[in-house]
């Protein structure tokens, strides 16, 4: 059963069909939420809420990119959470476990196929990127995450954030420039292969 059929069945109230869509897109949805919020627990809540909202609003989906439509819901849910967080104390970027202890290598970041040294480098890189992402405004952050981390096309991003293509281009270019400046400050954290040429000389 392809995606269009799953969507059609889900629109008719077939929860099983919708859950197959959930399984197909949950990594992408969670990743976007996590990049936007930098907090695994909050990202889980937002992802769950976004899927629930997507199921209830599925009748409003008029075709096109389902991925972009879903990411719009996740993005909006993340914005809502960010607004709520604005009224609460900020939390550490480093993931924590249930007891509040820092988790050096979150389970969802660990890749069993990599050796520990490589994993450590990856984690450092992810942390550096995440910290720099947090310095961007949410609008810029959403675009750079969707294009550079999620690999979406400009047109999909434009559909997801409901902005013209020119806005996507502009935001992405400026976000990349800001990320470049920020990553220079984390050059010690970055593995040598990822250091910028100008800094490694």
């Amino acid at each position, binding site marked *: 059963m392809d995606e269009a059929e799953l969507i059609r069945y889900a629109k008719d109230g077939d*929860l099983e069909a919708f859950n197959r869509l*959930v399984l197909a897109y*949950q990594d992408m949805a969670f990743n976007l939420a996590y990049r936007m919020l930098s907090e695994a627990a909050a990202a889980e809540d937002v992802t769950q809420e976004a899927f629930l909202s997507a199921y209830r609003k599925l009748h409003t989906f008029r075709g096109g990119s389902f991925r972009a439509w879903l990411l719009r819901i996740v993005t909006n849910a993340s914005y809502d959470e960010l607004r709520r967080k604005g009224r609460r104390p900020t939390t550490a970027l480093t993931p924590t476990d249930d007891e509040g202890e820092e988790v050096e290598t979150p389970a969802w970041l660990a890749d069993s196929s990599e050796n520990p040294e490589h994993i450590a480098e990856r984690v450092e890189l992810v942390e550096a990127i995440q910290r720099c992402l947090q310095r961007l405004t949410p609008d810029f952050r959403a675009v750079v995450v969707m294009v550079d981390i999620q690999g979406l096309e400009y047109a999909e991003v434009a559909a997801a954030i409901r902005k013209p293509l020119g806005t996507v281009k502009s935001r992405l270019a400026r976000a990349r*420039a800001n990320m470049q*400046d920020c990553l220079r400050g984390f050059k010690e954290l970055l593995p040598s292969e990822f250091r910028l040429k100008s800094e490694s000389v």
Partner: protein
Amino acid sequence: MVNKLRRRDLEALSAYLDGELPPRQRARLEARLESDPALGSALEELRHTRAVLRSALVARAPRNFTLRADQVAQPAPASRLYPVMRYASAIATVLLVVVFIGDVLSGVGFPGAMALNAESQPALEMAVEAEGEAELPQTALAEGADVAADEGMVEAPAPSEKNVGATPMAFEAEPEGGYGGGGPSPTQPTLAAEDATEEAALPTLQAREVPLTPAAESLSEAAPADNEVSPFRIIEGLLGLTALLTGFMALLLRRGDL
């Protein structure tokens, strides 16, 4: 380097990296890149930054976010009666307040105000008529006393001759209590005929007694009003009951008990 670029160049380089630049702009940019090393260097830095970002692991979902049937179950829609009951309760409450204020301001159905009027008016009349009138027929006294007695305004013990003329207060009590049976006192004519001194004193006593007639009339008018239910009271009661009932219904509807 990138920061020194003009925004238009930065956007062009970024889009060029992603193959999102229109052919004409792309050709123009490529021509500039060949002749401008600084622009080429900026492009390389931007390409490297993009590579770093793309190397970031995509965070995998820590659990499945599949939905359960109980999660997607829609809550029962609120009854359409709920807003009706809510507004009805509010309107009834507002009307109740308005009617109550009107009731208080008008004094109608306000027992305290009526009692005050009934007491103050004869007091004034008593003062005026005590000076102007010398004597009134005994029947007037008897009638006034009858009315007062009939209305059950006083319950004084039966008078004696000694009480008559002793004190105004004692005399005032006499017709009320002594004529309590409704008929004229058998002792009163005797007192007026036989005892001259007492007869001389009688006008004064009568003068003090006369105002009792209008007072008793006023009271006799006021007393039935107390027993009747004022329209304001009925309206207030109905509005209060309506406000309570509709409010309670709205509460039940909101909780989904109905």
